[in-house]
């Protein structure tokens, strides 16, 4: 079945929905489709807890927010994009307020802001400790007001249609019936999120499998800076559930087995609220050197909130308290929480410029799936939800402008036939002897071991070898569910295929980058090397594996300096 739209947005998280609203505001004559593999409010963006950073008050400045972001990125961020980004943020906060977002307030009724890692001023706007949840629901509810936005819920994207360097549309499986639907579009916006489920110990929802990244990559769009994966310091052991940075922002302490607040050794000025990569490395070093606690689920560090008192915890960190009690059976008011660094954010992604444009005409990418790059080698907390809002809006507006001047697009019947063959003949009901879930387990194990916080040549080479082996084995994978109706077995298998492609790019990119910068730390090359490596990694797909190229970082105001906190 074919349907036609001016703009098709894939992914209905913060960036996707913001893009839909922006495009609909631009013109009510545009026909917009937004499709996602789950209902919009079930997206991974709802898990975001801490907040969204913006310059709102007089004691702050755009230059300061930009500097904090650039320094936090270990100078890999493109500074022109960062300067643009910080100037657009305040309006996004106010728009969300106008649309009903329940921002937490100061006593005088104005929007409150709190401290967050790496920001030199308290500029993180928040809604209790469920900021992402409230932002998503606010955007979803606002999106309902636009008649020209059609929602396609539980449609799983399988491919992009690109011809002559121009996008023509998207193909997706309607999960309910299992039928393939072909969306012919003038402009396509990818907002499918990150790729965190490459790792086993991760804060990500189960559905974050890098779909948009992998499909774009296979269609010839380069991926940028994929080796940079953020490891958030505090993931609850054993589930990986995020304990928000806000716990440290509100005054929590990190203690090792000896009861020391060990951050004094690594970041004496900012202590626990130094940027995430610094805290994560500090914690991992303590664990590797034997000063972590032991447990049946592996080593951990203690996050101590007991000195904050019940009232403050209930007011500022209710979700964290609830999660700890429900998922580990520990009350943070009484005891410290067991935490460990956890895979949390994909700094890398689809290569876009400041206007969310990719090298393919009509194809845009916004949010975590894209790499502009704003976050460079390390992202500051509360900058991701901000990025989704600003660049979601930019993508929506740019796609709208493009679509208003473009002619109709058609997906050739030959593509339809090929895609149907690929999905229904070659994948669905494919009999083989490999379990996709076993492949995923082994992938996670390798990534957790060799492409983690401390990386070295030997481990990375092992990882690349293992991933290539898994990719071979994947060719023999079996999808046991042979029905079309809501086939989650098929969906999971396809997702695992996406993850294998992305893992290869991550591991190889990490192997090639012989320096340490931001979240990418090489034990064998522990220093930052601006002379050779102040550049972005680009990975292009070939059937033999990724081919790499490099492009320079855009510097406007700030020359790289040593990154000390």
């Amino acid at each position, binding site marked *: 079945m074919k349907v036609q739209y001016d703009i098709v947005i894939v992914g209905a998280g913060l960036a996707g929905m913001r893009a839909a609203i922006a495009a609909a*505001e631009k013109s009510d004559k545009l026909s917009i489709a937004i499709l996602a593999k789950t209902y919009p409010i079930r997206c991974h963006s709802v898990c975001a807890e801490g907040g969204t950073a913006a310059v709102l008050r007089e004691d702050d400045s755009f230059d300061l927010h930009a500097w904090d972001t650039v320094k936090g990125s270990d100078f890999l961020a493109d500074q022109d994009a960062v300067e643009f980004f910080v100037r657009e943020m305040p309006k996004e906060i106010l728009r969300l307020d106008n649309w009903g977002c329940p921002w937490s307030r100061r006593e005088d009724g104005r929007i409150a802001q709190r401290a967050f890692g790496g920001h030199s001023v308290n500029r993180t706007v928040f809604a209790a400790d469920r900021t992402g949840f409230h932002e998503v629901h606010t955007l979803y509810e606002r999106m309902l007001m636009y008649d020209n936005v059609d929602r396609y819920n539980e449609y799983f994207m399988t491919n992009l249609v690109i011809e002559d360097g121009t996008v023509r549309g998207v193909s997706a499986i309607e999960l309910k019936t299992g039928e393939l639907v072909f969306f012919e579009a003038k402009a396509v916006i990818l907002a499918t999120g990150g790729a965190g489920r490459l790792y086993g110990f991760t804060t990500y929802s189960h559905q974050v499998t890098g779909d948009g990244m992998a499909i774009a990559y296979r269609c010839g769009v380069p991926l940028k800076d994929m080796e940079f994966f953020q490891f958030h310091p505090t993931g609850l052991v054993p589930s990986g559930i995020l304990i928000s940075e806000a716990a440290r922002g509100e005054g929590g302490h990190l203690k090792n087995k000896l009861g020391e607040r060990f951050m004094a050794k690594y970041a004496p000025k900012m202590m626990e609220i130094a940027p995430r990569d610094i805290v994560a490395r500090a914690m991992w070093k303590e664990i590797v050197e034997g000063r972590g606690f032991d447990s049946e689920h592996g080593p951990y560090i203690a996050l101590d909130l007991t000195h904050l008192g019940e009232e403050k915890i209930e007011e500022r960190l209710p979700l964290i308290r609830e999660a700890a009690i429900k*998922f580990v059976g520990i009350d943070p008011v009484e005891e410290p929480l067991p935490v460990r660094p956890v895979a949390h954010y994909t700094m890398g992604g689809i290569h876009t410029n400041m206007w969310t444009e990719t090298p393919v005409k009509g194809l845009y990418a916004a949010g975590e799936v894209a790499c502009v790059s704003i976050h460079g080698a390390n992202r500051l907390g509360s900058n991701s939800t901000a990025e989704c809002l600003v660049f979601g809006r930019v993508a929506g507006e740019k796609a709208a402008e493009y679509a208003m001047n473009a002619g109709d697009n058609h997906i050739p019947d030959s593509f339809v036939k090929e895609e149907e063959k690929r999905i229904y003949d070659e994948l669905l009901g494919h009999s083989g002897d490999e*379990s996709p879930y076993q492949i995923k387990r082994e992938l996670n194990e390798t990534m957790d071991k060799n492409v983690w916080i401390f990386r070295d040549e030997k481990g990375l080479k092992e990882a690349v070898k293992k991933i290539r082996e898994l990719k071979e084995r994947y060719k023999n994978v079996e999808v046991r569910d042979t029905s079309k109706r809501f086939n989650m077995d098929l969906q999971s298998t396809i997702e695992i295929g996406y993850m294998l492609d992305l893992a290869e790019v991550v591991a190889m990119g990490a192997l090639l980058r012989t320096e340490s910068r931001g979240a990418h730390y090489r034990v064998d090359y522990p220093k930052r090397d601006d002379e050779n490596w102040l550049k972005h990694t680009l990975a292009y797909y070939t059937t033999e594996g990724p081919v790499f190229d490099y492009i320079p970082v855009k510097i406007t105001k700030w020359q790289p300096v040593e990154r000390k906190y």
Partner: protein
Amino acid sequence: MVEFRIRRFNGEETYWQSYEVPVKKGMTVLEGLLYIKENLDSTLAFRYSCRMAVCGSCAMKINGKPRLACETQIAALKSDRITIEPLDNFVVIKDLVTDFEGFFKKHEKVKPYLIRDDISYEKPVELIQTPAELKAYYDFTLCLKCGACYSVCPAASTRDILGPAAITAAYRFCMDSRDRGGDERVDIIISDDGAWRCHFAAECSEVCPKQINPAKAVQKMRVKAAIRSIKKIFRW
């Protein structure tokens, strides 16, 4: 080892299937279901995503009561046999996956967005709201749209009605000090399948995973609906 007894549906017939799941300390029902999917029977279909009780995907009937599978500890059920069924009052698509299109359409029907005609998209201005004003409606913003309340509502079982979640969403906006669209929403609640269908069985409040008391919101909306109806009569 615990027996997971699951009511399945393949598009044509409903049947029960049992699986033996090895249980570790702290294991949730969702983890048990994922174990089944990844090791025993990958044809089992069920929704899940965040595994931390914020997305609302995994609401299902566990041992007779609707709960979120990701936050239900198997040990807390104190039973060797866990019976899992899809939510009541919803049409089943496959196994534990039910059709939520109608549920979201009802939510959309009550205009669950801030209605105000003095806001500008191009030049937004901060709206003032004191912490006390925020507290008046904040609890009702926590609704996950998981469907548990709708599945236990006795009024919803015999008739397609707006339901507790939609009416709670309407109440949340009526109580938001920044909103100016209260009357519009109350008019929708006065409809044939709105607040009048509630007979205070209050089961919705019992099963809500976020304990937001939808039964309270519905009663408060009734009062608003009643006052508005009377006002309308006298204006004639």
